[in-house]
């Protein structure tokens, strides 16, 4: 059989691919990754997968315990709440709100943050120093507090929560990108392509980005877990998703009054949040672990 290529080419996988090679060999990280993918699928297909409506209740099925309980009903696997709404469906729809929105939030703030960060890495002088100070002030305020401030200005609602969390996360991405770009630009290969006459943007795009993408990914997982917790906490405090949206934190807050007679309305959304955050953190840990191993190679 004829070979496509005449001579053996030594393949250099991109830094990102190298990372993936290491990542897939860590079982815990892969478990987290599959949970993550599972949540993504759930978030997208919740309307198809969910057996019941998350908002309209079945009024003859109030406060049904989960199916494994003696009084449970198999068609309401995780029970119902005080309005007869199926907990399973609510949690599934909640995936697209809490987890899905936090994913979108991270993507938006990542893009904005990376753009601002890399642009600012190219600047210097007073502008840069001001930005430095400004970022430090913003970063020293905890993200949840900042989100609460922004929601207090905009008024409680799910869309305002999203904007608040986006605005909170942007500075983190700006900071990490700026730092990483500056660090990379000092390296020789960047100097080489600069000597070749490449424009700053070309350097940024072809030389620097492939080398910092993993660090940004790692930051993204941190941001994602923070975003999930922030959205859920705001929902819990009644500052985020409003009645009757099935956001996990809001479901939990709604279950508070039922804590002693229908504890599953509190346990389940809490577990869902925990599951999503753990999955995200496992992926993040996996990436950071792989980053370390790659460096050591």
């Amino acid at each position: 059989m004829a070979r496509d290529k005449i001579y053996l080419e030594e393949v250099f996988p991109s830094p990102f691919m190298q990372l993936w090679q290491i990542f897939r060999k860590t079982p815990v990280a892969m478990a987290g990754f599959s949970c993550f993918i599972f949540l993504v699928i759930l978030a997208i297909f919740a309307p198809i997968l969910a057996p019941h409506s998350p908002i309209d209740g079945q009024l003859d099925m109030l406060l049904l315990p989960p199916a494994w309980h003696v009084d449970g009903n198999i068609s309401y696997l995780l029970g119902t709440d005080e309005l007869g709404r199926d907990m399973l469906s609510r949690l599934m729809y909640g995936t697209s709100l809490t987890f899905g929105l936090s994913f979108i939030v991270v993507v938006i703030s990542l893009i904005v943050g990376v753009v601002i960060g890399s642009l600012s890495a190219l600047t210097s002088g007073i502008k840069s120093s001001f930005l430095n100070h400004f970022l430090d002030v913003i970063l020293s305020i905890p993200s949840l507090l900042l989100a609460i401030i922004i929601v207090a200005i905009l008024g409680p609602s799910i869309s305002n929560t999203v904007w608040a969390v986006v605005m909170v996360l942007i500075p983190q991405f700006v900071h990490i990108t700026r730092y990483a770009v500056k660090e990379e630009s000092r390296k020789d290969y960047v100097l080489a392509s600069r000597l070749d006459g490449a424009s700053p943007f070309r350097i940024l795009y072809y030389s620097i980005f492939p080398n910092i993408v993993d660090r940004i990914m790692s930051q993204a997982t941190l941001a994602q877990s923070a975003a999930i917790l922030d959205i859920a906490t705001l929902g819990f405090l009644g500052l985020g998703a409003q009645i009757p949206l099935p956001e996990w934190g809001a479901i939990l807050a709604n279950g508070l009054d039922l804590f002693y007679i229908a504890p599953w309305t509190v346990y389940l959304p809490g577990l869902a949040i925990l599951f999503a955050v753990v999955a995200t953190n496992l992926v993040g840990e996996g990436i950071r672990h792989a980053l370390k191993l790659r460096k050591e190679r």
Partner: protein
Amino acid sequence: MLVFALRRLNLFIFTMLLLTLLSFSLSFLFPGDAIINISGAINATPSELVEIQKSYQTDRNIFWQYSAYLRHIVNGDLGLSMASQSKISSEVLNLLPATIELSLVALLIAMFVGIPLGFIAAIKHNKPADNIILSVSMLGYSIPIFWLGLLAILTFSINLGWLPSAGQISLLFEIKLVTGIKFIDILLSDSPYKWQAFADASAHIILPACVIAVAPATIFVRLARTSMIEVLETSYIRAARAKGLSFQQIIFRHAIRNALIKIIRHVGLQFANLVTIAMVTEVIFSWPGIGRWLIESIYQRDFTAIHSGLLVLACFIFVVHILTDFIYAALNPLARGNKYGS
């Protein structure tokens, strides 16, 4: 040290300007009349309103208005709460100490649990103990704080009946509010039940403080672990080992001190984080602190309270931040020369 202090002072002034500017602009961003938002005088008669407008110089340009606002703040006048019509400055003075008390206890718990665990993990690097500590700590910072609080109440207050579920102290005890920090107030009071009150207050603080401490403790575990691993790899430790010092001697005499210094730098940052967690926890444990008050103000759209409360809280966090920077600099001479932000 002087240069360091000046640099920090510079940062402090810059931040305060930024924060007051933010708080000032909030009054325009909130719905309603800016002057009402800033002063909170919703029931003011027309003549009173004219008086207020004069004192905030609303007839002059925005710069003058801002400086008038600054003057009010410097004089300790944060306006009136729209909901209760009482002075915000006095409300904050009553509530902030309770939050500080809770956060400090939580910080101590987090440090006393987190740092030793982190050291153990570092010493047993890559052994089962290390992995267990790391996994538990990951669970710790993944758990939603409000959920953890509820579970803690259910377990320790209701099912086991060990600890009280809400408040700072049993309401049976009448303790006069002096400093706002309950333990000090109790010691200052002349109640015949002083010591019982003290024990009761201690029992009340355990549960919320432990709940708050969980997340920062896990951060301390990781910080302590990383810095200990770094220290153990340094040449002076190797030298000490070569000299024939026992493992215990190395750890207790040399490693812990050097590892601790690195952690102290992060205490300030963690404190900010901790105060936010405390805000949520205060809601769950009905702790009479500034966090619960602030969140209730948001529910009630009490804009004066929101923007003044935020200003106070942000200032407080920043002051702690700078204080820890100073402590760090005092402990570690190397840090003083470092350029800002590194």
